[in-house]
């Protein structure tokens, strides 16, 4: 098999060009999907028989919760690639993931709280999922703090990559231990409710939103990655040509 495409990915000017070409291919579908899914979710989908109009929060909440975990996976994979093959571009990709992942985690927490107010009567309960999400946010913050705490770029890259991989081993343990912790304190309640299968006109906007958010993440990551590559290569001659 021809591996040159893989090796070319390691070249900063090449990845800068590729990322620039790909960005609109992700950004436009993301924009279209999100706008149409918002319309479908907020106006076309019927209100829930139990939660009324309040359930519409799911169209922002669930996709961001899904992304918060997925982005961590992407970040750790990129970090592992960078650590194993000493690929600087992969480290740049991991670095550009962290802030996006933290933002989506934050959004999922805030929307969860806003949703919790009408449904549970309070903004915050120590629900296992909310708690695990909070720990995930702290992990993201720790990753970013470690990255910015080390002055030397190469060392910051590799140390934070090790941390990201440690996090991958730990996240499932944290999630399950938190679930176990709460399930022994609190009898099965709201969240344990058997989820009724969603009718199609409720589910379709959700799936569109999931895809749209994922594409949005890809587009934002590509933009951030270009900026990160430029920042790292600021001494190189190709950057001068690109910028001027």
């Amino acid at each position: 098999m021809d591996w040159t495409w893989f090796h070319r990915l390691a070249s900063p000017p090449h990845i800068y060009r590729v990322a620039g070409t790909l960005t609109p291919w992700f950004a436009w579908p993301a924009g279209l999907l999100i706008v149409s899914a918002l319309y479908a979710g907020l106006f076309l989908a019927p209100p829930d028989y139990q939660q009324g109009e309040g359930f519409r929060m799911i169209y922002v909440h669930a996709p961001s919760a899904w992304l918060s975990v997925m982005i961590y996976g992407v970040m750790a994979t990129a970090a592992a690639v960078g650590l194993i093959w000493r690929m600087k571009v992969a480290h740049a990709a991991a670095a550009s993931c962290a802030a996006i992942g933290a933002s989506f985690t934050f959004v999922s927490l805030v929307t969860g709280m806003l949703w919790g107010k009408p449904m549970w009567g309070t903004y915050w309960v120590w629900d296992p999922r909310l708690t695990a999400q909070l720990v995930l946010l702290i992990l993201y913050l720790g990753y970013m703090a470690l990255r910015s705490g080390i002055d030397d770029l190469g060392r910051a890259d590799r140390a934070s990559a090790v941390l990201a991989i440690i996090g991958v081993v730990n996240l499932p343990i944290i999630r399950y231990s938190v679930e176990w912790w709460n399930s022994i304190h609190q009898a099965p309640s709201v969240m344990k409710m058997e989820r009724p299968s969603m009718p199609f006109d409720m589910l379709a906007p959700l799936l569109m939103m999931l895809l749209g958010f994922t594409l949005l993440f890809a587009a934002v990551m590509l933009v951030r990655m270009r900026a990160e590559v430029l920042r790292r290569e600021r001494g190189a001659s190709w950057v001068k040509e690109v910028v001027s």
Partner: protein
Amino acid sequence: MSAWAGVLWRDLRLALRRPGQVVHPLAFFAVVALLFTLGYTPELGKLRQIAPGVLWVGALLASQLSLDGLFREDAEDGTLEQMVLSGQPLAALVLGKTAAHWVITGLPLTLMAPVVGFALGVPVAAMPGILCALALGTVSLSLIGAMGASLTLGVRRGGVLLSLLTLPLAVPVLIFGARATELAIAGEGLIGVLYLLGSLAVLALTLAPLAAAAAVRIGLE
């Protein structure tokens, strides 16, 4: 004598010459319990309810105190570099240093827990269970801490960052440890939770030295 035992022995002898390293975390542990008592209530019945949390959060924070120096001092005077160059498996040497950290902080904290627990109204019958839980839990805490300490080698003032990195990783240990303590106080069987704590310790014992060794190499580059 194998290399890791040599490192363990050396770190223990160093600690003996500075007894403060052993005493300070213990004093901190006692002060945390005292502060909880002063801030909450002097009633033993109520204190007994929060005793698991106080014991574990106190032990967790106290064992984090001495972590920053785990690798930093040896990195500054060049000892760590010699260890990396020695040709011995670095993970084993890191394990030796971590074992020394556990003997210096984890073990004394475990032994002191009954005293603190007694002050919080924990019945004497619960002490064996609490001792077992803390002995297993502090092993994981030392190993998790070693990962954090090695990762922050390159950070100039890494103390706060170190806690930010290690505390979320210690969440499962805290949950199972506090649960075991709760069961011990209630006089119920806690062997299942002890198994879970033990498996966490085994997992940390297997993976943490490798991760910490990788981080030490990165930190010394």
